[in-house]
């Protein structure tokens, strides 16, 4: 790897798409994501939110940590790393995975792409190289950080298929959810996966950084026909809560960075028990998870709809109005499309059961004066927002 000796002069890296975001940015709301400067909001939050839910939004994914995992034991290595049974993963497919430490506590989640035989890419929110290398002991596997060598763009929303097809990506129609294939946009090679973090129809485009602007320009070249907006991370935060996707490091503390006893979480506890396959053979944390699984649940991340329209923010949850405190909201948003106050909350169970009468105590301000109010919470078992059009193949060309 070539080291740029002048790198220190620039405190934040710019993604290959930076210039385009900069041109479009009216709000100048930037933030740091994994050493890169990215937009929090490009223009207006509401425009970007509605673009994802009713049109097409384009977001920069380049700062996602990407690891290329190759070598004779790549499959065995990944199998031991993640809790999910990945035996059916094959080239051209993607799967959502989580991994734990020895104690069965969550470290991170990510999407695992199989690119070829013994050739995988793991896309993660946070830096994971150290854990991957620790996990590599005893395996013939090569792990390489390729975050900076792969530019990535999320194209999401009900019209994202139509937009990409119009922009010139051929052979997109057969792409099913969690497919990932090498396609071309005109003559530019682009790896297209039907994946995303919005809960809507959507694609993620992976390309060489030198092709980034051409791809961007091709997409925005059809802006006359379609409602396309560049999107920042604030809108993403809203839609991912609507889709009830959890965010490591925000909704739970990642295990290897947790100092206080009991502050880390297991997959079961954050509602990811469905990708823990205790019968798949050994994986890191299996023994601990087996033990946890055999006992009544202590706590769970619950999807709750909170009464009223006061954003829940950092509220505590109580067992009964004025009752005993039993949990806390981890993230929440007002959902414009559902007209509801949504939150994910970490709730302590009582004797292995979810308390039935949950209330949030919401602290809010009126003209800078603090007030508090009780709001009833309703627990949902399914994602708040999960539209049919998300799954259709080929997607509707609207």
């Amino acid at each position, binding site marked *: 790897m070539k080291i740029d000796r002048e790198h220190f002069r620039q405190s934040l890296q710019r993604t290959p798409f930076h210039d385009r975001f900069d041109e479009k940015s009216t709000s100048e709301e930037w933030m740091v994501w994994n050493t890169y400067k990215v937009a929090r909001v490009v223009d207006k939050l509401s425009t970007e939110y509605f673009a994802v839910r009713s049109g097409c939004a384009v977001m920069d994914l380049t700062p996602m940590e990407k690891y290329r995992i190759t070598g004779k034991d790549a499959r065995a290595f990944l*199998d031991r790393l993640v809790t999910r049974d990945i035996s059916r993963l094959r080239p051209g497919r993607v799967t959502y995975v989580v991994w734990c430490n*020895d104690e069965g506590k969550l470290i991170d989640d990510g999407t695992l792409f199989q690119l070829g035989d013994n050739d995988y890419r793991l896309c993660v929110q946070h830096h994971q190289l150290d854990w991957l290398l620790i996990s590599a*002991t*005893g395996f013939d596997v090569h792990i390489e950080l390729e975050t900076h060598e792969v530019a990535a763009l999320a194209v999401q929303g009900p019209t994202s298929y139509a937009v990409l097809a119009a922009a010139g990506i051929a052979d997109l129609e057969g792409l099913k959810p969690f497919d990932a294939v090498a396609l071309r946009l005109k003559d530019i090679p682009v790896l297209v996966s039907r994946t995303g973090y919005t809960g809507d129809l959507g694609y993620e485009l992976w390309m060489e950084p030198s092709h980034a602007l051409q791809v961007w320009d091709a997409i925005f070249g059809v802006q006359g026909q379609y409602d396309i907006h560049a999107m920042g991370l604030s809108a993403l935060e809203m839609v991912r809560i609507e889709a009830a996707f959890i965010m490591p490091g925000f909704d739970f503390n990642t295990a290897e960075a947790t100092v206080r006893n009991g502050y880390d979480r297991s997959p079961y506890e954050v509602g990811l028990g469905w990708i823990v396959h205790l019968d798949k053979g*050994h994986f*890191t944390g299996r023994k601990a998870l087996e033990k946890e699984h055999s006992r009544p649940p202590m706590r769970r991340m619950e999807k709750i709809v909170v009464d009223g329209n006061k954003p829940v923010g950092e509220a505590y949850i109580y067992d009964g109005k004025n009752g005993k405190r039993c949990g806390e909201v981890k993230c929440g948003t007002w959902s414009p499309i559902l007209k509801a106050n949504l939150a994910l909350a970490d709730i302590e169970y009582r004797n292995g059961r979810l308390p039935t009468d949950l209330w949030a105590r919401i602290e809010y301000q009126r003209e800078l004066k603090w007030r508090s109010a009780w709001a009833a919470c309703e627990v949902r078992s399914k994602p708040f927002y999960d539209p049919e059009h998300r799954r259709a193949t080929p997607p509707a060309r609207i």
Partner: protein
Amino acid sequence: MTERTDAIVIGAGHNGLVCAAYLARAGIKVVCLEAAEAAGGMSAPRAIGGKYHFSGLAHAAYPISRAMRRDLKLDQFGYAAGPAIDTVALDADGRHLIIGTNRVSGDGLEETDREAYPEFKKQYLAFTRALRPLFDNKPPRLKNMQVADTMTLGKLGWNVRLGLGRESMYEFLRVAAINIYDVLDELFADERLKGAIAADAVMGSAMGPRSPGTILTWLQRLQGELNGPLSLQSGDRLQLVQALVRSAEDAGATIRHNAHVARILVDNGKASGVELSNGEVLNARIVVSNADARATLSTLVGAPLLDAMFANRVSQIRGSGVVAKLHLALSGMPKFTGLSEKQLGHRLLVAPSMKYIERAFNHCKYGEYSEQPVLDIVIPSMHNDALAPDGHHVMSVNIAYVPYDLEGGWENQKQPVADKVIAQLGQYSPNLKSLLVEHELLTPRDIEEQYRAVQGHWHHGELSIHQSFMMRPLHGAAQYDTPIEKLFLCGAGCHPGGGLTGLPGRNAARRILELGAAK
């Protein structure tokens, strides 16, 4: 063909045999699998030229504890401690010191040192006695402590505070974690005496007298002296191994030779048996491994069946052998300047000063062998005529420090090392070279290959503070059980560590019985 038994013990080294014997005596059906032709591991008999006999790697040891002799009826099966031997601290000018368990004499020894030595031994044996509960039991678990663990710590606390008394306890707490160089320098003036004591504290470890933790290794060694004086392990009878084999077999254990375990079979997180390198599969309720913890977990089980951090910690267990073994076949009795024929029966030590040892250690840190190594020599044939043809003798020499990873590789450097040591011996024994019939050098690499000890380490891992007690061989496997259910460890890599003590084997068996794991 598959067979089923209660317990499989991998390795018929002395700890494996002790463990097998204890388990068998408790009514458990045991099969002990030994890769080599003979039982005994590092103390198995070994011969060169067909007629010169040695006792493998362990040429001197302390007697086995009375409790173990009683439990396993070892005396009844022919065990007797070998001939007790003193230590002769060799001096280039022939002014040797004779060092016994509680007396020291020799030319030029100052009166103060002569008087201080028994006091020193008394005090350190008292420290050792205070630590006995810790060595005799499984190391206490600090989290989720069991009653037995509380007892161990309670006894230890009682021993240290009340057994030692206030003054002695303060001294113990002062020295427990420091180096032997500083402590000996405070107590003695004679360089030869300090060198001889320090050599015993560091022999087998990648440590010099100035390395931290060398009081601990010295106390670990002194555990043996609580059972009796240092004794010679003579080559043909090998009473300990023989008695252990007989005791185990008498209790119903089967010992199979030339049975090399290729892997431990793990079924859904539980050990279910082993597969031999010839493909034969043996099933058992439990598998107990006397092999190095690194070999057991990384090779026989394999990282894919372990959690990531644990597997990583296994790979970080420190233990690279630094002692080579030289066997000499001699056509007559070697003469040592300044030593009588009778004195040749003692252990002879070339470690003239602590600085000499520390300098010898320096080389191995950089992947070099010492030009002036520490030598620990016995001539077993002085006690036993059967070890060599009439009038001939065998000499066994431990050489420290000789690195496992030698700069430039071992291929062409074995002979130069042997030649240099033989030349060095010649400085003390002028006629030695003329008597030399044959020799054999076992480098740490050879020890790894022939004794299956990872990196040729005597103790299956350094006896450093971070790898002792509840950290030995590593936390997560320090109570003889491992993250793989039904898989146990019983070797020198476990608490309380190496040496011909049988304690890891006995503690492991007791743990297995306490857990009722083999039923």
